[in-house]
């Protein structure tokens, strides 16, 4: 209860006037321009972030989070579908991976033997000799094979992605 009669009405009047004044001031002020003039870096530099963080009990915070519930709400299938596996694989340097890791030993143990090594060597020599012969034939005939097809369209189109050496055939 107010000590003097009519005080309550005065308060209401003052409040309504103050409210009106504040609205008028806010309408007149360009908040965006005002904020633009604030040096946020200077403001932030005065904030003791470490101090704030040190006061936070992260363990208590984490304890209050229901991680399982969050995981349940994540649609993993949708995420997987959005990942371009082909692009990821293309970015992997398999040669480097094999050279630097024990993966190489595993591959060597599982796939290589004396026979396959000899076979690879024979085939590689054959390809090399093919190229050598074709190069010399082209040189003798004074022609270029740069724009020749390297193979049947269907097979070249389905060649393994990222494999070098399919671009030209001498």
């Amino acid at each position, binding site marked *: 209860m107010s000590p003097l009669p009519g005080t309550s009405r005065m308060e209401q009047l003052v409040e309504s006037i103050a409210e009106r004044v504040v609205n008028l001031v806010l309408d007149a002020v360009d908040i965006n321009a005002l904020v633009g003039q604030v040096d946020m870096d200077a403001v932030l530099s005065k904030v003791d972030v470490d101090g704030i963080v040190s006061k936070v009990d992260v363990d208590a915070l984490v304890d209050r989070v229901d991680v399982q519930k969050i995981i349940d709400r994540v649609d993993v299938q949708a995420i997987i579908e959005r990942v371009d596996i082909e692009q990821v694989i293309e970015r992997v340097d398999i040669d480097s991976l094999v050279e630097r890791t024990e993966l190489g030993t595993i591959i060597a143990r599982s796939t290589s033997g004396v026979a396959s090594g000899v076979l*690879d060597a024979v085939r590689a020599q054959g390809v090399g000799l093919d190229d050598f012969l074709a190069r010399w034939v082209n040189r003798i005939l004074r022609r270029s094979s740069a724009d020749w097809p390297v193979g049947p369209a269907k097979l070249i189109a389905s060649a393994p992605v990222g494999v070098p050496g399919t671009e030209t055939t001498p």
Partner: protein
Amino acid sequence: MTVASSAAAPPEAGRQGNYAGGVTRLVAFAADIGASWAIFTLALAGLGFAINLVTGKQVDLASRQILALVAIILWEFVYFAYQWSLAGKTMGMALVGIRVVATDGDPITPRQAVIRTVTLPLSFLILGLGFIGILLNKDRHALHDRLAKTVVVYSWDARAARLRWLAQREPTKPA
């Protein structure tokens, strides 16, 4: 002068589907002739032994040259046509990593395999000129390839060979 990948260098990667060259094809053919003759000789020896065992008579094909010639021709036809129609490659071709496909890259049909087998001798009969296309044509067509509408391509996985070669070396430490 470098003519091929040296022992110190990994095999060149990624030739699957490229037109195969003359040397590889020649090696494959030589291997096939060797294999087919070996099988024929073994089969003949086995047959002669069986006949001798059953009838007690010696089989001498040297005195029956026409029969031997027909048998060889038939056998070579079966050897090549059967393997081409079945898998698009013979034993020799599998050894050097090549195969026969249709000109558009599809697997060859049994009909194409038969035509290729029948017309293969033609490439020899015209003084070997039927093979000159392997060196001169951009799609490395021999005469029998052109008649059967086929091409020969590399089929071996050079990429896997490269990985095997890398794998056989000592692992290097990361930089």
